[in-house]
């Protein structure tokens, strides 16, 4: 006599109908454009996060605690997250290691940022970010993680902000690791990020902590390391720090046939060398053209047979805007240089831009 309780398919169809109706009402926008105004962190929206706390760590580093949108997938400690921050009106993307415990009760995640000299985003996050700030997020990524079966002996070698991914690992797995050695180099004792927590863990005997402060001990070198950690050949090693240090370590481990025991995480992206002209790659069509610093990319591309959108050809109509995947271009009208690395979401006008180094146009 009773009808079956509403089953999922019925609810699903209802939701579909409501969604369709919402689309008809929102056109030419999409419903998300309206809902974003009130609930930007809802599930199904573009992934964003809201800063809930900014915790100073050292004089130039701070932990940014973020409540991620409800679409956030739990991360593996050691991974990083790409964060999109609007600084001075422009959206900038940077990658930061997640330093938080894996599944915090409050559902938040944290990144720890060190302000580098002339760093636009790092300085903004450390010095100007306030609770309530909404940032864009990508899902966590990276394979700088501990294996599921924990190694019996672990060595972490870090310098400066390189401590951040390792801190994520230590906070989550220190109870599962029997033998952890952390060799950390920082400019001074006060510059050691997470100093109190690390020293407490060391005092409790849960890790062996070796701090090297450059102002008294000099830069960390391979000899120091070998002396400090005689059994480093037996340890799975995770290293994160400046490129120079990582190059040294990778080379040394490779020399001794231990390359598979060394895992590195590099922070600094490829340095963009800007100059006059360069190789222009049209990534979709696979064409590469050498162009000088005075030739608009539009002309260079057309000459090479690439189908380029265009309009006024004088910079006013924005009919030639295409993505610059990576590289550097110069505005021929005023000399301003625009640079991009993959994921930055930079778009340029090809009719008034010339190559200022190698560049990759998505056409």
């Amino acid at each position, binding site marked *: 006599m009773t009808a079956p309780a509403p089953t999922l398919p019925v609810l699903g169809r209802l939701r579909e109908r409501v969604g369709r109706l919402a689309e008809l009402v929102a056109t030419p926008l999409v419903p998300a454009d309206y809902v974003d105004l009130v609930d930007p962190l809802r599930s199904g929206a573009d992934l964003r996060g809201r800063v809930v706390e900014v915790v100073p760590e050292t004089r130039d580093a701070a932990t940014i605690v973020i409540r991620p949108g409800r679409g956030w997938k739990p991360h593996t400690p050691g991974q990083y997250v790409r964060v999109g921050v609007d600084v001075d009106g422009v959206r900038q993307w940077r990658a930061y290691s997640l330093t938080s415990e894996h599944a915090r009760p409050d559902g938040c995640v944290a990144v720890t940022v060190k302000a580098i000299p002339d760093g636009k985003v790092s300085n903004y996050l450390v010095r100007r970010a306030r609770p309530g700030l909404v940032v864009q997020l990508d899902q966590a990524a990276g394979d700088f993680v501990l294996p599921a079966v924990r190694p019996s002996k672990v060595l972490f070698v870090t310098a400066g902000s390189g401590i951040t991914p390792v801190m994520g690992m230590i906070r989550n797995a220190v109870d599962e690791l029997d033998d952890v050695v952390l060799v950390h180099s920082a400019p001074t004792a006060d510059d050691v990020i997470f100093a109190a927590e690390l020293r407490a863990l060391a005092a409790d005997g849960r890790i062996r902590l070796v701090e090297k402060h450059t102002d008294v001990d000099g830069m960390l070198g391979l000899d120091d390391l070998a002396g400090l950690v005689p059994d480093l050949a037996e340890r799975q090693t995770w290293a994160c720090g400046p490129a120079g240090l990582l190059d040294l370590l990778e080379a040394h481990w490779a020399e001794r046939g231990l390359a598979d025991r060394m895992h590195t995480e590099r922070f600094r992206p490829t340095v963009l060398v800007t100059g006059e002209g360069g190789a222009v790659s049209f990534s979709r069509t696979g064409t590469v053209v050498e162009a000088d610093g005075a030739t608009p990319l539009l002309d260079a591309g057309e000459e090479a047979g690439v189908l380029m959108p265009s*309009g006024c050809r004088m910079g*006013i*109509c924005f009919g030639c805007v295409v993505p610059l995947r990576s590289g550097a271009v110069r505005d021929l009208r005023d000399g301003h240089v625009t640079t991009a690395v993959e994921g930055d979401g930079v778009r340029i006008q090809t009719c008034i831009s010339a190559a200022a180094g190698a560049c990759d146009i998505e056409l």
Partner: protein
Amino acid sequence: MTALQKKQHNPIAHLTDADIEELGRELDAIREEIIVSRGENDAAYIRKIIDVQRKLEIASRGVLLFSLFPPAWIAGTTGLSISKILENMEIGHNVMHGQWDWMRDPKIHSTSWEWDNASPSDMWKHSHNQIHHTFTNVLGRDNDLGYGIMRVDEDQRWHPFYLAQPLWNFLNACLFEYGIAAYDLEIGKYAKGRKDKALFKAQTKAVFAKIKKQATRDYLVHPLLSGPSAVPTLAANATANLIRNLWTHSVIMCGHFPEGVETFEKSSIEGETRGEWYLRQMLGAANISGSDAMHLMTGNLSFQIEHHLYPDLPSNRYKEISPRIQELFERYGLTYAVGPLPQQLGSAWKKVFRLSLPNDFRRKASAAVVASAGPSAIARKVGLTSSPVPERVAA
């Protein structure tokens, strides 16, 4: 008007080539200042405007669900009209100009923005950004000079069709959203066989698809959602669209039609330098003076001159550079065309009426009456046959 090159007193005769290039440099310097100073406050401005407009729209549509009640109808229609005007002018027009591309926000970008209007954004960007802004006020190139249905310059050839142009103008104003779509389709060009057939077909399809979506929302879905208030809601939406059409049409008329705005001969822009392009923009536009609220509702097109000089600078910065632009006008001996809204609109409409008749109609008519010898003689003298102006204008 009359093409600048044909005027008895040429307003730029006193400027040497060197003067014009120096003017260009000074204008470039102002542009550079604004470019490097774009920042947080500007980004916050456009985000705020978008936030306010969308909330106003939702609230107004919500109120209209009860539009059977007159206060709800009035409040909802007013709110929706303001929301549509903001969306059209301060937001849509400016975002599609690329004014906010520098923010690198994919949702507020000229390449992805679609506006609440019958004309699809890519078609509008072509006829507006590319054609109108490049060939501003050039007779025979800038079709905004009359939109193909009106004669707004003495140097545009007269045709009996234009006798009724005040009516065409009024109809266009009421249906402006569709007028723009038809204009962007370049129907006249297609009729003359000068537009690619496949492209025209594809664009027509796109236009109808867009109109269908807009109409479904405003005249079907929203009314139906209002239940018993269906008919008043439909009327409210139609009214809001009409108000938006009339307002935007009026503002746009004030941009290039009031007295004091120059037009240019086609040949005069061959080999045009950057300085000369700037100069043409300065003389080919007119401003509207008024309150900040008025500026906002015109999408800052009340600063038409500043907008034409710098179509890609954020609209909220036009007011700040306006005094410096006016100073340049003074120093270079040029006239800055500006006036309050009623004056500018009146001037534009007066021109529409005046030029619906052939040039010099009064003089010729009285002369014809005096010296009349027969109907065909009158017809000749009154100019109902081809006028002797050499410049042909493409519709």
